[in-house]
């Protein structure tokens, strides 16, 4: 009870602070777009200045990464406190740009650094992330190493005080706008598949690094192909032990699954509830039910899937010492969220009929076009971060204890 009171009082403080400090100039602006760099270029100078001021204020309070220790730029708070900060910022119509501005920094690189980094590495890298000043990307997948990440072939050669990297990465999100990269590289070609791999950090602004954006079926994308040609990573930027990168990346991927289990995101699909959209496009009968009963039946199943997913995420959070361990829960939730979201997008398309196949132009509302693009880009949800099939392998083996098939090399 004490704790609940404390949290409520914290909430009041946060609410007051946000109300007092969120710049008026940012009200109603596409903050996520600006933070992501997509519409940043189009923003006015006033908005840009407001954004920078807001970022600095958040960073000073350590709210870019509230649960990190204060000495690394965080606020040293608990998860419930961090949730309250997120909720109150959301409630005020504001937006916390720092996680977005750091690419993979706050969600993945930071937590992994906290666990595996040396004192010096933590001191050097974490503050730039927590403050939103340094954007990070991750060089993991390669053209011939997708779900089978461990078969990667990018090499890092020992050059005395640094490694020289050569090879190609793919799906490096935001590589073209990041300052730093965490890369998985092969440091021992003779060792077993997972044994000769290391995890290094390297700056992206150097001659040996080239990036090419990838055009997706949904149009432009944040993904790049990244080419290393004698790219340089300092020895001091080796994260974890030499040839022990596989442990680092396993942990990293757990953070990734965690971050994909259905957090809030700005989505055109959420601009109006699907059943309201359906009432608009499809119409209702005299009882107030959608006239297309076949659609209605699939719509309610999707609603129930969404409710079941959210209740399960909540339940797993609530279980102090739950029997479902975190990584297992992440696999289940990633798949349930993916299935729900992809079905939702398909339903939205179906509801809109021929307005749901628009690509561009005045014939379609911006919201309609946005949904179509999200429908397409959302197909990747079941592919990246461990595909739907890989998650099922994890559940089958790690959660249920079924024997591994002989398929893993």
């Amino acid at each position, binding site marked *: 009870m004490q704790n609940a009171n404390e949290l409520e009082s914290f909430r009041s403080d946060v609410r007051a602070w946000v109300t007092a400090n969120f710049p008026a100039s940012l009200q109603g602006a596409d903050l996520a777009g600006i933070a992501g760099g997509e519409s940043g270029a189009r923003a006015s100078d006033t908005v840009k200045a407001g954004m920078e001021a807001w970022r600095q204020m958040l960073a000073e309070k350590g709210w870019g990464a509230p649960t990190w220790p204060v000495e690394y730029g965080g606020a040293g708070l608990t998860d419930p406190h961090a949730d309250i900060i997120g909720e109150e910022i959301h409630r005020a119509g504001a937006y916390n740009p720092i996680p977005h501005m750091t690419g993979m920094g706050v969600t993945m690189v930071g937590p992994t650094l906290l666990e595996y980094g040396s004192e010096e590495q933590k001191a050097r890298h974490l503050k730039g992330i927590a403050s939103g000043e340094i954007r990070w990307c991750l060089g993991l997948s390669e053209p011939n190493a997708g779900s089978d990440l461990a078969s990667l072939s990018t090499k890092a050669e020992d050059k005395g005080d640094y490694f020289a990297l050569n090879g190609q990465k793919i799906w490096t999100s935001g590589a073209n706008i990041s300052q730093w990269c965490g890369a998985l590289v092969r440091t021992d070609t003779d060792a077993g598949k997972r044994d000769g791999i290391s995890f290094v950090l390297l700056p992206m602004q150097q001659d040996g690094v080239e990036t090419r954006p990838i055009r997706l079926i949904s149009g432009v994308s944040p993904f790049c192909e990244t080419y290393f040609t004698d790219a340089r990573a300092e020895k001091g930027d080796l994260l974890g032990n030499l040839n022990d990168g596989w442990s680092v990346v396993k942990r990293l991927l757990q953070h990734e699954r965690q971050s994909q289990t259905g957090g809030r995101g700005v989505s055109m699909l959420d601009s109006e509830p699907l*059943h309201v959209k359906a009432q608009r496009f499809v119409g209702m009968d005299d009882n107030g039910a959608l006239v297309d009963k076949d659609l209605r*039946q699939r719509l309610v199943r999707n609603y129930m899937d969404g409710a*079941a*997913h959210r209740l399960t995420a909540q*339940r797993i959070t609530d279980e102090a010492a739950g029997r479902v361990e975190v990584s297992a829960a992440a696999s289940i939730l990633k798949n349930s969220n993916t299935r729900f979201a992809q079905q939702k997008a398909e339903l939205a398309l179906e509801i809109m009929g021929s307005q749901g196949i628009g690509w561009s132009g005045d014939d379609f509302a911006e919201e309609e076009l946005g949904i179509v693009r999200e429908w397409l880009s959302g197909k990747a949800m079941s592919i990246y971060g461990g595909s739907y099939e890989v998650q099922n392998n994890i559940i089958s083996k790690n959660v249920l204890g*079924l024997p591994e*098939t002989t398929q893993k090399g």
Partner: protein
Amino acid sequence: MAALTEEQSILKDQATSWVETELPVQKFREFRNSNSDGGFDPKAWSAMVDMGWTGILVPENYGGSDLGYLTFGVILEQLGRQLCASPLFASAYVGASAINMGGNDDQKQRWLPGIVDGSEILTFAVDEQPRHQRDAIASKASASDGGFLLSGAKTFVPEGVSATTFVVAARTDAGDIELFLVPADADGVSRTQMDTVDKRDHARVTLTNVALPTEAHLAGMPSGELYEQVLNRACAGVAMEMLGVGCYSFEMTLDYLKTRKQFGKVIGSFQALGHRAAELYSAQEMARSCAEAGVIAIDNGADDQAAMSALSKAKTGEFLFDMSNQLIQIHGGIGMTDDFDAGFYLKRARALEALYGNQALHRDRYATLLGF
């Protein structure tokens, strides 16, 4: 599962171990083979009374412990796991809910202690047609001589042969569906047991001009409201029992996947079956969240109780439907034999799915309650 208080945890652990040692599914098999009437073992029923389960929903001043719906749900889940037969749900969950919400002090004093000590077995008599429909009540309760004359025919009444008192849904002269307490031995009441696949006590009950005093009328809520509320609670309770049936079915299946060998390997090592198990497990976790949310919403007096009860019944129903079919399929030939327990779970699954409306009905309710 949901975070439990210490008291709830103790009760749950007690129930789990009692069910496993005293009333495993083997007891149900013996009962089924004995071909006896009535649907449950009186000794087991006494034990449940002694453990205080009949008082979980009853206020302390009427002899209960008032621990709430989540607590009762957790017990129902454990009973579901071993297909334990008893009137616990019908009487101490549904019956007690009706009296709690609809009864005045006199009525509570008259009925609740009997529910708690097991001397009264109440049951809800709702359906008049094979398929549950909330508004399809034709039974009439006409005002007469300062009381009521009640007539109608009910089917698929749980524990209908063992019940001492029926909580009958009937239409008053005003056309509202109201609840009436009808002693099973009243003049004009007759009942016959239906022999169903799950071998539990379901009865047809015929009511012919049954004369009832005013005190038989549960009038504590506005017209029709009590009926709806009792049904919502009943659905959430069935969902918890279904969850238990489904979870145990999953565990049997997982065990078989780990031990049965074909082609020189345990069959769980075949990826197609491993992935199917993963999907079923995920569905089980989703079903658990929804089932628990149903009873928790009642405990919290949440605004969306009706929708949550529909969600709980629909989602556990969908899981149980798939799970019970896969229970047979993955066990293969052995699953088809009567000597093995899988068939019991499949049969009970369909009976529970049908009770108070199947998945389709609750999907429809959910959509309607959400406004589309």
